């Protein structure tokens, strides 16, 4: 297979070095779709080691302040190359919670917080989980109900979070909670860096429809946290969270690489299987679907690159991020629906069945695909955003 997907960024020499590094150091990644947690302590240790090595080698954290190990004159395109090459090797990515927390601390944290918390992110001794989503709020982040009530020299937290990746492994939490219930909507929310072993925090694994368990529900029942846990200032949580979320840019190019790999694997599979007694690849409808998907994957890459280039040039538009998210998530769903359908009756067999094609990965990805159209702002929210804020349609 040698599909020319077009060159993402052109830092060729760096790309070659990263590729060699990944080949030499990365642990394998299970052929499962989406954000998946380590399944056991051994996997977790391997992962910590790998992430720390990436920081050590300067592939991660180069955009950090110099005193915490960043590089002078860092070019953000290097981060894209790193993310793409890790994805291309099917190696594990940076932990989402750690990346998000680091970005919030660097931009809004106190000197004390930075000194205390950033080194352990570099070494991956700390594992962070993100505590944003709530069962009652979903795509309506402003409707958040978890409260952190000021009490003496600290806060008492009560409420519930959900969809907490790595919650059961994490020792640190990046929490959003409402500190002032009288302020409307997204005002009155504060960001915190908390210890997950604080009494009153209960982490319960949540199983997804795929059967795997990568997320958690986190219950706060009067958990007392110190005032020093506040990131930024009280009431600034919405700004802190949005700024760190907006920095999740490298994810797009990695996600595109995942799509490319899936397309290539499916194309290889289509060479082998038959439909109505003829090779699948001789059927015009199959060829058309592959051709269309190849084009759509390339378009996805271009949406990501354009958005990235606009951001670097200070010309980012409201449409950029939601358009990329919509395009990726719906394309990913279409691709995996096609994969399952392509297999015909064999398409029903899943992991564990002796005859399951490719160990059931296509079925797993098909089921998981809807996560992307729901999480991180559903497709409906993305379309609202584009219509109201990019096209100016009335609310």
């Amino acid at each position, binding site marked *: 297979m040698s599909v020319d997907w077009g060159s993402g960024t052109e830092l060729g020499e760096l790309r070659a070095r990263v590729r060699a590094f990944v080949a030499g150091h990365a642990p394998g990644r299970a052929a499962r779709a989406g954000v998946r947690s380590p399944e056991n302590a051994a996997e977790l240790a391997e992962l910590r080691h790998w992430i720390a090595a990436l920081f050590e080698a300067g592939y991660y954290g180069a955009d950090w302040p110099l005193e915490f190990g960043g590089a002078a004159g860092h070019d953000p395109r290097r981060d894209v190359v790193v993310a793409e090459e890790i994805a291309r090797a099917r190696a594990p990515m940076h932990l989402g919670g750690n990346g998000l927390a680091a970005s919030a601390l660097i931009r809004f944290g106190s000197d004390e917080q930075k000194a205390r918390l950033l080194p352990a992110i570099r070494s991956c001794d700390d594992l962070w989980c993100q505590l944003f*989503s709530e069962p009652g709020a979903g795509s*309506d982040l402003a409707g958040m109900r978890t409260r952190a009530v000021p009490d003496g020299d600290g806060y008492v937290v009560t409420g519930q979070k959900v969809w907490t990746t790595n919650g059961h492994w994490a020792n640190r939490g990046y929490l959003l909670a409402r500190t002032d219930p009288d302020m409307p909507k997204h005002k009155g929310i504060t960001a915190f860096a908390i210890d997950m072993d604080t009494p009153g925090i209960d982490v319960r694994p949540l199983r997804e429809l795929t059967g795997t368990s990568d997320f958690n529900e986190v219950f706060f029942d009067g958990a007392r946290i110190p005032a020093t846990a506040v990131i930024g200032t009280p009431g600034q949580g919405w700004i802190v969270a949005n700024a760190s979320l907006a920095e999740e840019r490298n994810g797009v190019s990695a996600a595109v690489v995942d799509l490319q790999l899936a397309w290539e694997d499916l194309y290889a599979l289509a060479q082998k299987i038959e439909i109505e007694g003829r090779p699948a690849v001789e059927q015009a409808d199959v060829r058309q679907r592959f051709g269309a998907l190849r084009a759509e994957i390339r378009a996805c890459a271009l949406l990501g690159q354009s958005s990235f280039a606009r951001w670097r040039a200070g010309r980012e538009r409201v449409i950029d991020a939601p358009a990329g998210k919509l395009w990726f998530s719906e394309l990913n769903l279409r691709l995996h629906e096609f994969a399952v359908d392509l297999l015909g009756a064999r398409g029903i067999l*899943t992991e564990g069945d002796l005859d399951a094609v490719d160990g059931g990965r296509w079925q797993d990805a098909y*089921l998981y695909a*809807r996560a992307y159209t729901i999480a991180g702002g559903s497709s409906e929210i993305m379309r609202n955003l584009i219509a109201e804020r990019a096209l100016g349609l009335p609310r």
Partner: protein
Amino acid sequence: MLLSDEQVSLAEAARDWLAERTDLAAARADGAALAALYSADDVRAAAELGLTSLLRPAEGGTFADLAVVVEELGRAGSPLPLGQAALVARLLDQIGIGAAVSDAVADGSALAVPAAAEPDDAAIGGVPGADGTLTLAGRAAIVVGGLGAAWLLVSAAIGDDRALALVPASSAARTARTTLDLSRDIAAVDLHGVTVPAGDWTRVGADVADTLDQALALIHTLDAVGAAGRLLDMTVGYVKEREQFGRPIGSFQAVKHHAATMAVDIEASRLCGHDAARALDGGDLLSAGTAVAVAGSVAGEGTSRAASTALQLHGGMGFTWEHDLHLFLRRIKVDELVRGTTRQHRERLFATAG
């Protein structure tokens, strides 16, 4: 073409009974044993309601009646292969073998299901012996109800001829399948070397063999229609309750339009499914074949789309293992792919248009 009052009553009776008997939590249990899905008592009770003898000629049973019941099985997410069993009872009566098995199915003391190769696979072969036996070779890759059944009605090819053979399920090598579907018993059945005594098999006309294929395909279509109907109800209920931005999400126009599209897809699928059942009753196999393919095409796309929309509208809630939603979504996808995919149904509709 509307349901008769009797059919409406039948549907309601089946729905009530299934709602009480179906334990969806069992489907979610890890490595769910078949025993957990349903019991011999469930089968007997279903038979008492007449659900396994619905198609027997002597009972005046029709595919139109069966359609009503199969839709309810899908709606309930039931593990019981009652459509398949009723079909076997009918075919046994029709071809004059296995009277005792047919009676056993009808009284609920045993289950029998058809075992046939998937449309794209090689047919199961049969070699007649001098002593009147038939020796089978080949495999039915996907047999719904295959583990729980005591008997299999095997659809086999003897050269260009077709035959049906009744074999004890224990004589075949059965393997539990791990599939998307968590709510049904699905097995692979290997029939290599199984010898069927004289009297337990017979050559059949293409009409009988085709009826078996078409009815099996239609059972999956109607099952998906029922399952999709359940998802519509769940979705409508959810979006009325769930609030975002201070309003029930069901008041947002885009959510309304998605729900309306689900309702129309399901209504069209249901009508095509019931039309195909009536066509099977009509006895013209060409018309019936077309009607079954129409139903498979419309419902294959429509019910899967409805399931996908249901998941989207449930948001994170529907993404959890504990929610019933995925059980129906999975079941619908299996219904779409087995016994003829949407693609195969469409190819048939094109190829027979000449």
